[in-house]
């Protein structure tokens, strides 16, 4: 095993002393290196020799020292025999439990990297995958292709570096702002260090709840929530919280609750977003509008509609984070921050709004008809009064009779009642929205289809007739 010398420990200690104002825990977090372990497994192939294994381990350790410097304390070793074949066979399927079964101390550090080197007819593949120990979170598999065996050691380090996700601890939140502290942030002295986090970077928050012994009792990524770094001052980050939840992050969970966030490195691939109805088993929500908000300008553009499977492909953007809005017939149903490429598919559970939309369609249809009737009545009233003024009383009579054939307040109220009976939702929110639609329309009908208009015109016409009769 190659072990990085603890020369950096002295530097860390001195920095700890300098930061006398900070708490001890904060100092350890900020001024101690990532405890990094790397397990390397070479597939059984003639070209993949014991010597190559040693070269790979050495290259990773040496280059980590150069690239990550004091931020990392990396220990590189051959994979434990229990893990070796698992890693080669199914790197992307390995679980935390399998890792701890192979080495009970595996999660004592900060990061564990599994590196697998394989040979195939086209050359060699180097694959690396990160396990963040604090959050028990696996990163995606990073794969690099190599033709020459001599390049394998260097590419192995590059794969590990690419798999690395910086870790932060969320210290406080206020409304939509979170303040976080970068792990080993006090040890990063170069701006180009891969351990650094910069404004614009995106982090995925994860809540860890510990037992009395500090062992994780529950680890939960906060769904549909991301942090976007606004600014960095030394190791302190100020981030915007983008979430589909009302209060996604609470920093008042007690000493046993820790809020972490991991930097994201999405693949340059779209994510298939799937909407399914809340409360039902995989009922897809088709035809829902998905809007994407530009985080700089706040403008939203229609990305498209979900297809019959309830899915829509969300392509990556330069900003990485996309804030999606789910609407149905103009009704906002969900806000879904998402990093395309982070996961191949993500499923969101949203209220099935079809019944409300159908009710809205029916009510809108009645409203359209109602508006036409109101306009027709006004037009006819003008024409009737004109005829009365012109003493064309017979014509006025005819128009009034015609006006009486138009749908009345009673007709519309009856239609509204009939239609309302069609829509009974088990979901209280949906039913409330439906009720509001019908109630508002009924009020409008009462207001604008006042029967006194016809009564008034009838009186005016009657008076005009009497006057005409009285005139010799």
């Amino acid at each position, binding site marked *: 095993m190659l072990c990085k010398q603890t020369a950096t420990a002295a530097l860390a200690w001195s920095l700890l002393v300098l930061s006398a104002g900070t708490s001890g825990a904060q100092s350890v977090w900020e001024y101690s290196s990532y405890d990094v372990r790397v397990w390397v497994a070479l597939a059984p192939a003639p070209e993949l020799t014991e010597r190559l294994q040693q070269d790979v381990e050495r290259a990773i350790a040496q280059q980590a020292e150069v690239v990550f410097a004091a931020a990392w304390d990396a220990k590189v070793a051959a994979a434990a025999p229990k893990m070796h074949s698992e890693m080669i066979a199914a790197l992307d399927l390995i679980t935390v439990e399998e890792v701890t079964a192979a080495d009970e101390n595996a999660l004592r550090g900060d990061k564990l990297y599994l590196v697998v080197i394989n040979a195939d007819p086209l050359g060699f593949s180097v694959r690396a995958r990160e396990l963040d120990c604090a959050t028990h979170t696996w990163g995606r598999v990073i794969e690099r292709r190599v033709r020459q065996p001599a390049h394998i050691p260097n590419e192995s380090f590059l794969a590990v570096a690419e798999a690395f996700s910086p870790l932060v601890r969320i210290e406080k939140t206020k409304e939509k702002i979170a303040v976080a502290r970068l792990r080993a942030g006090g040890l990063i002295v170069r701006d180009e260090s891969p351990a650094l986090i910069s404004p614009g970077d995106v982090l995925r928050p994860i809540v860890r709840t510990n037992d009395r012994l500090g062992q994780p009792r529950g680890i939960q990524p906060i769904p549909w929530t991301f942090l976007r770094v606004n600014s960095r001052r030394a190791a302190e980050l100020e981030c915007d919280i983008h979430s589909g939840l009302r209060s996604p992050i609470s920093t008042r969970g007690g000493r046993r609750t820790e809020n972490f966030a991991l930097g994201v490195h999405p693949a340059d691939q779209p994510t298939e977003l799937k909407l399914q109805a809340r409360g039902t088993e995989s009922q897809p929500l088709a*035809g829902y509008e998905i809007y994407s908000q530009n985080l700089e300008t706040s403008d939203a553009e229609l990305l498209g*509609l979900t297809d019959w499977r309830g899915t829509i492909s969300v392509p990556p953007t330069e900003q990485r984070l996309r804030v999606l809005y789910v609407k149905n017939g103009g009704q906002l149903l969900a806000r879904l921050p998402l990093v395309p490429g982070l996961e191949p598919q993500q499923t969101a559970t949203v209220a099935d709004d079809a019944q409300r939309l159908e009710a*809205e*369609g029916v009510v*809108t249809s009645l409203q359209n008809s109602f508006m036409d009737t109101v306009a027709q009545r006004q*037009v006819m009233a003008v024409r009737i009064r004109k005829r009365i003024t012109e003493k064309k009383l017979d014509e006025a009579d005819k128009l009034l009779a015609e006006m009486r054939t138009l749908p009345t307040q009673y007709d519309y109220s009856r239609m509204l009642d009939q239609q309302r009976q069609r829509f009974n939702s088990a979901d209280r929110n949906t039913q409330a929205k439906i009720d509001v639609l019908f109630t508002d329309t009924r009020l409008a009908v009462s207001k604008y289809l006042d029967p006194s208009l016809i009564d008034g015109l009838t009186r005016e016409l009657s008076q005009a007739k009497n006057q005409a009769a009285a005139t010799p």
Partner: protein
Amino acid sequence: MKQHAARNARAVGRIVGISLAVSLLVCAHAADAQDEPATRILDREPFDRITLDAANGNTVLDVLSLTPQDRAAVTSLKPGAKIRIRLLAQTDKEFELAVSSIAKEGNLPKVIFFEQFILHEADQLVMQGKTDAAFEYIDFLLKKYPNTAGLEQLLQAYLYTDAGLQFRAQRYDEALAILEELYSQNPEYRSTAQVLGTVADKVIEGNVGGQNYTAARKLIARIDQQYREQQQAVVTKWQQQLTQMAAAKRDEARRFLDAEQSRAARDASQQMMDIWPAIEGAAELFAEISRRYPLMVVGVTQPALSDDPRRIDNWAARRTGRLTERLLFEFIGYGPEGGQYACPLGTLETSEDGLQLTLRLRRSGTGSDPTSINGYDISRRLLASADPSSAEYQPAWSQLMAGVRVQDVMEVQIDLRRPHVLPPALMQMRLEPAPGVAADQAGFGPYVLQERTETETRFIRNARFTAGTTAQRTEIEERYFADPRDAVEALRRGEIDALDRIPAHQTERLQSDASLFVGQYELPTVHLLVPNTKNSHLANRTFRRALVYGINREAILNAIVLRGVSAAGSRVVSGPFPAGDGQNEALAYAYDETILPRPYDPQLAFTLIQLAEQELAAVAEKKGEKPPPRPTFVLGHPADDTIRAACDAIVKQLEPIGIQCTLKELPSGVTADPSGECDLLYVEAAMWEPAVDARRLLAADGIVKSEDPYVGLALRQLDVAKNWRDARLRLHELHRMTHSEVTVIPLWQTVNHFAARTTLRGVASRPVAFYQDVEQWQVAPRPLQE
């Protein structure tokens, strides 16, 4: 006289038609018609003029027309008789007048009766060459005073003069008709016989010059039959001339035939038959050429720029698509429950639970042919249609199909996620050539495109196509006519064998032609205006409703589309689906008859426009923007004579309610506006299977590109309909929604007709598509026409 009266009646009808159209179209208040001053004698109260004798100072009395009894007393100079008169100047008082007091001219009383005034006036008009004016007088006399002395002579003079006028105006047809009538009345009248020959010569010359040989031949035959003795010279002259012309074409055709120049031979022989089919050897030569190179010429008024049997918005592409392509399932008509479909390659069975389809392909016609289709080819098509990344992707099919597998190469089993009312409607998929076979060598239609020019498209037989064919299939040439009247005349003259669409008002006329067969298409087309909702005004549903109220659709349909002809099934519609045509109500399963078309109400339209603009202003204010100004809208329409006139009428009707539109005619054969330059697009849609065509028309990726969420929801609900009852309910809901939202502006539906010469055999009387049974068609050699 009858012909002349008919001519006048036609003229009057035309004027009435035009004025009706104009009054309806411009929505203007008709000005009160001013009565013409009653100066003409014809318009005056009938009166007689009596001159008294010298004893009474030769006084002239204008009196109201005498009663028949008094008239008889006057004309017979009955001694001692008295008559009752009312002076024109004092009609409320009656006087008695002794017949003996009337002056005499010879043995006759000096009385001028009213009809003699009329006769005199008419005579004057004839002498002045004012025959149109004279016609009214003569017509009056013929009806009211047919026994007037001198009327017959006046009539002959009138006919002779009018014939001369028509001749000088080079209206030889009419001059000839008038002369023939005069000849029938009095063959000796002046030089009628000689003039008739001259005019007939001119008419024949005009027919020959206009290549209307059929009419020329018919006239020669009639002149020969009716006036042989008098007109022998004319008949002989033209018989010889046409015989020579036909002989030249015969010789030309023979030369082409020998040189195996099929098209030229066919054209020359066609012309020969058209000019003078009775020449020696013509019938045999024509039969020989028809046998060796059968050709059918189809007149079209909408040229096909592409061939696609699935286009619902392009009649021409759909028409020719049937020639060059076959679909896995093809719509062939209507049954009690929606469309009936046939698979040209095999048969389809549906399991009892409706969840599995088995398609068995016929083995005949396949074998070692590399272009033959097997179950694996079909399965690839079915899978491609369910693949979102494929150009053939159909969401509804993707949603329905659970899996597909092939058994024994020629049997395809398709598993469905749920039962569907009409799976074959979703399986109208193009058949693709097998891998490795060039597309142009492996068309699956009975024809392949040979040549496409601006005026002609020629299809030749597809040698690889064998399914359901007769031994003798003709080649097909589509000939484009910009003016449908020219197409109709070409059909009547025999220049074309069929016409795929005929104007509604021509149907009756063509039906009366024994040499033609007129058929009606099984299904109507629905005419719509598709609004471009990128235009902020058109995105407003209130504004769209205003447009509907502002267009007098009934008037345009009757006055312009149908030209006053009653056509069962052609009617104004309230939605995008076909309504019943009175004969086959099954096709109207998507149409909810309780939703009535909005009436024409320009005042309401005007009011709704104001309301819509208030809504637009409120939205703009919320955004801190200025309200959008009302633009001049661009109304795009296909290059079609009737559609052009209908759109012109729409523009004129919208103008008075404050909507300015300009017309943009799409290039010939184009029906879509992919650039989105048009604010409104006239679409004639063949919505034959609304259960699946509704999505093709209305969906966000359809023709209308509707993003209306209510319509989208209704479409999705339609997609999952499990039975016909459910499907019908969903379609009615969709109808209601599109009506309410005015997703499209529905105009009318038309039942459409085609016509073919009776020499074309095998054409169905009510086909769905023009070339539906094209494999069975045969063109018989044309009988000699005399």
